[in-house]
């Protein structure tokens, strides 16, 4: 078990190093003038470009630049935002609590609804309810987040005035953005739970449990639902990446001062230092969550420990 975890950790570290090469190579190694990239391709005098080159050591050989950049990363230094002149790390950390709150609420909503609907529909396979839920899942997967956001904001916030539409004045402000963001994830969670439940229904230990006279609700609760929830650990790991994408859209619609909102603004300001720093932060987070999900899966399911 310990060896497995160490091996996964080394794998994640190797992936991270490779990611730094890819991102650094894309941003600084490809043909084109990085100074112009940092300047956001605005029309700037040659003097400014020279100052930028000096400041970011762009005239040094590429490997030396990479090592300096990498050294900064390891010390938690993601560089300096070109637009606000503040360290990227500070900007992202300031915005992080809002995004963490939003993503946590989103995950709770999509897993609670998805697991419940998936278990119910699997129990009544082929019924009108099953078909209806599956149809709404396809619809939920098909509607882009920004369309859901605009419509939800208009109805719940502007027309019916039930919930706050923007900002973070109260905890209620997170409800609409989280529900919007959860639309895609709940559909995936429902489909996952449904297929898991169906697969477990005909397994030997479930048949044994039925044969020994356990009530149907006890079989479902103890033997089917509990086992079906195991893949959700991996689901959370994968979903973090999708939610990082989604939060950029949702935080822009609902004007939340989170990481996604900061990035959306950086895109329109062409603040490339911030975008590159953010990309590295997301990769690190994703790898970390993925690693934790792997370890959690190992802890939950002893059978996995024998693999490899």
């Amino acid at each position, binding site marked *: 078990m310990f060896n497995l975890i160490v091996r996964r950790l080394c794998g994640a570290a190797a*992936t991270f190093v490779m990611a730094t090469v890819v991102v650094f190579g*894309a941003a600084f190694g490809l043909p084109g003038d990085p100074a112009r990239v940092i300047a956001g391709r605005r029309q700037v005098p040659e003097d400014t470009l020279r100052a930028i080159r000096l400041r970011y050591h762009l005239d040094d050989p590429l490997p030396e630049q990479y090592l300096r950049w990498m050294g900064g990363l390891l010390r938690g230094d993601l560089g300096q935002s070109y637009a606000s002149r503040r360290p990227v790390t500070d900007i992202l950390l300031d915005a992080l609590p809002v995004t963490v709150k939003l993503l946590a609420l989103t995950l709770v909503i999509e897993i609670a609804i998805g697991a419940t609907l998936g278990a119910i529909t699997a129990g009544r396979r082929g019924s009108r309810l099953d078909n209806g839920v599956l149809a709404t899942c396809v619809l939920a997967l098909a509607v882009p987040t*920004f369309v859901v956001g605009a419509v939800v904001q*208009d109805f719940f916030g502007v027309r019916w005035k039930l919930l706050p539409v923007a900002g973070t004045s109260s905890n209620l402000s997170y409800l609409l953005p989280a529900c919007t963001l959860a639309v895609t994830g709940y559909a995936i969670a429902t489909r996952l739970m449904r297929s898991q439940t169906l697969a477990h229904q005909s397994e030997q230990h479930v048949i044994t449990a039925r044969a020994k006279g356990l009530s149907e609700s006890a079989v479902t609760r103890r033997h089917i639902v509990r086992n079906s929830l195991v893949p959700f650990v991996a689901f959370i790991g994968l979903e973090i990446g999708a939610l990082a994408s989604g939060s950029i*859209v949702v935080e822009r619609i609902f004007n939340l001062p989170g990481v996604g909102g900061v990035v959306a603004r950086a895109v329109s300001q062409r603040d490339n230092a911030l975008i590159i720093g953010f990309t590295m932060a997301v*990769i690190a987070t*994703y790898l970390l969550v993925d690693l934790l999900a792997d370890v959690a899966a190992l802890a939950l399911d002893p059978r996995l420990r024998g693999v490899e």
Partner: protein
Amino acid sequence: MTGAASRRTWVGRLARHAGFRIACVLLGVVGVFAIAPGVVASLSPASSDPLECSLRASDGSYQDRMAPSGDHWFGTDSQGCDEFARVVHGARTSLQIGLGAALLTTVIGTVLGLIAGWRGGWIDAIVRRFADVTLGIPLVVGSILLLSVLVDGRRTPTQIIVTLAAQLWPGPARIARSVTRTIVQLPYVEAARALGASNYRIVTRHVLPNALPAVIAFATPLVGLLIGAESTLSYLGIGLQVPSVSWGVMIDDAQSVYANSPFLLLFPGLFLVAAIAGFILLGDALNDSLDVHLERG
């Protein structure tokens, strides 16, 4: 499943699939729009050119953001363009990007997966690590990095296709790799090799046909995902820009005027959803009926 049903071929299973029939209707409509936008758009009394717009009608009255009417079936947008013509013409751009990116993704992924699974060793290790890195960067984040940092000036559909495919190839690569590794060990491949078949012949005759059903079932809903991704990139300001006519560009335009003219968002949104749902349903249907294990009984 009864004996008759299991004997039916995958075409027969597909034809009886409820989701497949709905998908055909949805994709049929969108497909006709994309193939002959000029013909469909000219059905309405308004001008059928999505870019020929004027703020004022011939009688001098303003005609921007007019509600849907007999003349302008879907209303007019902020520039006074006919929204119906734009929705119809937008189908071509959205489908172009969706199909193009899905095709490129599938080709890159399948080739890399085949090579990795066939060669094994360090080539396999590198491809897998690259796939891990690629999967670690969320689609929107990676697209922002590639399109906003690297691309200068006006973005073209090709740039968007390449950006999306560069990030999504690990999916088909994993499928192709695992199928290749399974097939390579089978006795008939060994027999083929003993008979002197070249690597090329074994890959094209034995490996590829076995990998294709799974790859196609993966790539079909991917088209829908990519159409959605194109519109999301437009919304974030890193996708196509005006004067390109795509549903994403139109929806982005409509956001700011949603309170007064919701129809400008709802009409392109409706067809966007129809196209994406069509590809998801088609993918589900293919997944159910192309199932390799079912085929083998």
